[in-house]
């Protein structure tokens, strides 16, 4: 069920790929052998740069180590051909070894760098260490790896330069097309979501670590294959093919070309490498100086690189290249069955929860149980620990002590996405969503846990649970599916937030001030939906709210939190009529009343 927009992407990519292949097919006849040679190498490097752009430009993983995979592929070729054998089977075997080695290394890098809670800086450190370690291994390899001299003149296919040009060109077109489909697919939108707001993506149940590691592995394989081709063509491998300096150079090319545009870095790599070949021979230091200056200027002043500027210019000339406003998928109702209220264990049970930051104890032993079909409101003054309570329930690494059970399962130290998988949905107080994604894309994102996301296509339909659709209609979101969320009104953002959480089909819903700053009509609509979720769908809802009027209308029970502990728990009437609560809210003495 590929969507219209998916078909359009296919058509664009096919058109682009065919054009590029045609150019590549005839180009060698119009170029001198020197330029052809340079371009072959540039093509392989461009394929590598493309993977850097997917990792860094799209997903936000700043990698210094992509060169290592190139080196691994190149050395697989050289080592096998030099020491073991040469022939079609050996070649395939060597390629397979290179790719497998790259996959294994990438998996280790992923395990090290992308665990839950790892800072982006730490991931960069690991990718920085990777080429350094690899190059030292090559140096230490003595005659086997050729040490610093590298290996050369091993048997290889002495095909004509044109043949190599076609192979390299076809490879680049192939991987770039796949890359293009990937970033334009629903899955590609998930990558952007990770870049924009990794934490929020995790709370929508997206397995960040797995996706990043998988992406690293795929990039590693593409890079290794490129390295293999490079080595087979040039007949030379040297440690610098896998070193840190090449790794940083890839970043420079990506930045200059325009990160997050895919085509920019690819063309940038080709352009810069070819220019370097012509200029650096005569002006080696000046060339490096100019590249360095250009790099600093682009990073500081033009973080999106040169591609968008050129792209706009070209867009006027060649209309198909101009980016059309994204065509949106349609919403269709999902079949979300109400939850049977026959659980032995309550959907949410909080047991002696303690949370402490340094010497500041925010929660001091909170107990609460929420049953299916129940809406529990948590009220209390600022700083009472309400939001912290939500955080401790939805991220296993947050609490200091105590236990939290979801559907009877202890959450342990699980990452947000694993708690989402248990059926917990959490909405946030701030309305900071994924600014460059459209409303439809955000919803698709939220459905990842239920429906997955196609890698190379866009869906025509997004399935949404009925209550989520209600919210969308009430806030007018259903009319603006193709709008980027950054430009939505406050009310729409809040509505989208709630719709996204509902799209994950939770059984426990944690809502942090969902109605703050909303109009009366919007509040009423949300109140109705919440009521419906508990009454019809049997959800357990926990609501943080300041507006006692709103709380009174929809709550089954109310918990009053004050200075990190439960001050009072009771029915709506009990709490609202309580002297104690009135005192807390008007700031009068609490201890005396209690």
């Amino acid at each position: 069920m590929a969507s219209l927009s998916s078909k359009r992407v296919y058509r664009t990519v096919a058109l682009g790929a065919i054009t590029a292949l045609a150019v590549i097919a005839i180009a060698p006849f119009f170029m001198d052998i020197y330029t052809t040679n340079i371009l072959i190498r540039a093509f392989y490097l461009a394929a590598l740069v493309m993977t850097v752009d997917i990792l860094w430009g799209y997903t936000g993983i700043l990698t210094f180590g992509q060169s290592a995979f190139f080196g691994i592929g190149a050395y697989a070729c050289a080592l096998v051909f030099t020491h073991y054998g040469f022939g079609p089977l050996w070649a395939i075997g060597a390629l397979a070894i290179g790719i497998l080695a790259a996959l294994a290394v990438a998996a280790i890098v992923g395990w090290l760098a992308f665990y839950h809670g790892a800072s982006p800086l730490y991931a960069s450190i690991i990718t920085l260490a990777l080429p350094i370690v690899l190059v030292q291994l090559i140096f230490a390899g003595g005659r086997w790896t050729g040490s610093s001299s590298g290996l050369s003149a091993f048997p290889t296919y002495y095909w004509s330069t044109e043949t190599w040009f076609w192979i390299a060109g076809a490879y680049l077109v192939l991987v770039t097309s796949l890359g293009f489909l990937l970033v334009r697919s629903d899955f590609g939108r998930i990558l952007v979501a990770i870049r924009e707001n990794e934490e929020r993506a995790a709370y929508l149940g997206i397995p960040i670590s797995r996706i990043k590691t998988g992406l690293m592995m795929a990039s590693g394989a593409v890079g290794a294959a490129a390295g293999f081709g490079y080595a087979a063509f040039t007949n030379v491998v040297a440690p610098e093919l896998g070193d840190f300096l090449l790794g940083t150079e890839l970043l420079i090319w990506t930045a200059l070309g325009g990160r997050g545009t895919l085509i920019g870095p690819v063309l940038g790599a080709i352009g810069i490498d070819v220019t370097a070949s012509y200029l650096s021979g005569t002006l080696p230091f000046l060339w490096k100086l100019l590249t360095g200056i250009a790099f600093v200027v682009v990073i500081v002043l033009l973080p999106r690189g040169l591609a968008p500027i050129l792209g706009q210019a070209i867009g006027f000339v060649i209309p198909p290249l101009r980016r059309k406003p994204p065509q949106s998928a349609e919403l269709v109702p999902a079949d979300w069955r109400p939850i049977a209220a026959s659980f032995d264990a309550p959907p949410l049970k909080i047991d002696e929860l303690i949370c402490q930051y340094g010497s500041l104890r925010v929660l001091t032993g909170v107990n609460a149980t929420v049953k299916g079909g129940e809406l529990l409101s948590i009220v209390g003054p600022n700083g009472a620990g309400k939001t912290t309570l939500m955080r401790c329930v939805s991220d296993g690494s947050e609490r200091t002590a105590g236990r939290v059970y979801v559907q009877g399962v202890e959450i342990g130290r699980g990452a947000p996405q694993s708690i989402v998988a248990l059926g917990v949905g959490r909405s946030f107080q701030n309305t900071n969503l994924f600014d460059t994604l459209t409303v439809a894309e955000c919803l698709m994102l939220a459905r990842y846990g239920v429906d997955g996301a196609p890698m190379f296509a866009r869906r025509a339909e997004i399935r949404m649970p009925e209550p989520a659709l209600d919210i969308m209609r009430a806030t007018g979101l259903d009319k603006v599916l193709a709008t980027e969320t950054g430009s939505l009104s406050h009310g729409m953002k809040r509505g989208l937030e709630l719709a996204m959480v509902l799209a994950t089909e939770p059984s426990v819903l944690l809502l942090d001030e969902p109605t703050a700053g909303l109009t009366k009509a919007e509040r009423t609509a949300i109140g109705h939906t919440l009521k419906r979720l508990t009454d019809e769908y049997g959800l357990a809802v926990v609501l943080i709210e300041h507006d006692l009027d709103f709380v009174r209308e929809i709550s089954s029970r109310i918990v009053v939190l004050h200075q990190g502990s439960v001050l009072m728990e009771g029915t709506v009437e009990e709490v609202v009529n309580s002297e104690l609560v009135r005192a807390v809210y008007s700031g009068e003495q609490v201890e005396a009343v209690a």
Partner: protein
Amino acid sequence: MSILVLDIVTTAAILFAVASGLMIILGVMKLINFAHGAFLTVGGYTAFLTTEAGITPWLSAPLAAIFGFLAGIVIERLVVRPLYSRPLDAILATWGLGIVIGQVITLTFGREVQFAASPMSGTFDFGAIDYSAYRIVVTLIAIAIGIALTALFYGTRFGLQARAVIMNETLARGLGIDSGRVRTLTFGLGAGLACAAGALITPLLSVDPNMGLPWLVNSFMLVLVSGVSIPSLALASLILGGAQVAVSTYISPIIGGLTIVVLAAFILRINPRGLGLG
């Protein structure tokens, strides 16, 4: 055995001196300065120019510190300031800056190895063993740097303001602290320290346009593992530097060269806060 201890202590001291400038910048500005290696190189060339001018080599590190401080202030205004909200881009921009500095040095002084005079040569005798006098002196200077930094951060108003900015920048600004000025001064201080360290290690090294680069990654790792505090940087230098010396001595200097990087990566994987003491 006593040589091993001396090797470990002096190596740790050198690492501490080299990494301290990077740490200060990271601590206050939350920014990884990848031009750190280039700053070390600038320090080396300051020492070279000091020698050329016939000034006593003891003055090369202070002169480098002054030059680095001034250059750091200019660089902070031009390159670093727009990037506070983009920490990963700051890494890249400072890396690019490092390339630019390296090439300017190359175009000015040429690629070749230059020589700076050493303030002292020969060895100290410790009974059974004799040991490089300059390494002992560098160790003492590194300890002095550590004490001076501690005094600066815990004994002066600037230090108090810098720590306030580290802990809660918004609050600090609300109390009338010009956090922009604190950052500028900090970057200058970090750059000055890096240049001084470059001048300091020059008698043990050669002066060439790439001299700082090998130190960059190790310093970076030490600073991250230390979790940004002066005593824990000293501790990290001692532990990781000690591991490097031990591995170099008992296993292989080649693996020794990787020790800090690999060990740091694993320490951070196990505990993202590193060895932080506070």
